[in-house]
């Protein structure tokens, strides 16, 4: 049983890792009662709609957790990604992650004299895919030139599965922009890379998300980050999920 120490949490364009100390991702299904007179005295139920809740507990940091949560008031849907067990404590390509596009539901600032100031948030899953289980394609890193990420064995995408591609852009300096692309290939050599999802050019910190519904037997996946502009750098992280 691993002990949680290094869970990395990315929320839109913010890295909450160093200010968060608790995270809960809850997925539940409505139980729909379909009992009939012929059910011989017992309830009969079927699974209904999936729902998800995410709770984030953080220390109040006026440059991280406070703007992250307060910037998302008013029904903004934001991408949240958690890498619970990064390899050796450092997020590595291929690490398992959970992600969801969720809408801010509550912000709470528990204030008790003598306690460290905190700011907590709860979010509700807000998009059809619910909570995704995937793999990190690109750990958080800063690049100053177009970069191709590590190859990750995410596996084949069998119809009707969908390939999901999520990115967090934490900062852009100078005149940089970034265009992020999900690619797959049949072999580790990545001889013929196929573009699966290409996100629109990102020019400000935030998140990006895209999908591909085209099935493929390709086992190998990677991210390509193409920089625009001439000076500065971009800090980002990316994941993919097939389900």
């Amino acid at each position, binding site marked *: 049983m691993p002990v949680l*120490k290094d869970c990395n949490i990315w929320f839109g364009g913010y890295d909450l*890792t160093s200010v*968060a100390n608790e995270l809960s991702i809850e997925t539940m299904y409505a139980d729909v009662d379909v009992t009939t007179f012929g059910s011989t005295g017992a309830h009969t139920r079927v699974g209904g709609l999936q729902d998800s809740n995410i709770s984030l507990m953080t220390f109040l940091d006026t440059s991280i957790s406070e703007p992250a949560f307060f910037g998302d008031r008013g029904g903004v849907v934001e991408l949240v990604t958690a890498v619970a067990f990064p390899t050796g*404590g450092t997020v590595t390509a291929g690490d398992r992650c959970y992600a969801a596009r969720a809408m801010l539901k509550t912000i709470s600032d528990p204030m008790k004299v003598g306690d*460290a100031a905190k700011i907590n948030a709860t979010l509700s899953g807000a998009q059809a895919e619910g909570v995704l289980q995937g793999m990190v394609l690109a750990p958080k890193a800063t690049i100053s030139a177009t970069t191709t990420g590590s190859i990750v064995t995410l596996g084949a995408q069998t119809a009707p599965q969908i390939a999901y591609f999520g990115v967090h852009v934490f900062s852009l300096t100078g005149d940089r922009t970034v265009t992020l692309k999900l690619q797959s290939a049949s072999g580790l050599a990545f001889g013929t890379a196929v573009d699966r999802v290409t996100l629109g050019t990102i020019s400000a910190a935030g998140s990006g998300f895209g999908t591909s519904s085209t099935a493929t037997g390709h086992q190998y996946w990677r991210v390509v980050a193409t920089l625009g502009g001439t000076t500065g750098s971009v800090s980002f992280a990316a994941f993919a999920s097939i389900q």
Partner: protein
Amino acid sequence: MATIAQLRAGLVDRLSTIQGLQVYGAEPGSITPPAAVVVTPSITYHASFNSDGALKQYSFRVMVLVAQGLLDEAAYSLDEYADPTGVLSVRAAIEDDPTLNGFAESLIVTDFRPLNAEEVASLQYWGGSFDVTVYAR
């Protein structure tokens, strides 16, 4: 990332602003009262995620020893160190720089208690103990 030595030194600096108080950065073999001793803290390592860069909670104890044995003057003297404000206030001196020279994120002096009879008998000094919670990475 802050080390215990840096935080301890920060507390020593704060306590050294109290005129007349002999300040010891660690448990000494002997003291000259009135003295303050910064005792090795207990630590909660994982107050936040991110092991190496995680927020840590250091629970320091600062002992203030004012005189050998329990004397009236000693008790009155200790009052002044225990006062929440004033030129001899330990709380005020420490909380005046919650960053401890830039190495801490925040701190609070939560409690003071006078030493009990057994402690005084053991230490040979009358005094009190301050609990200082320091948050640092």
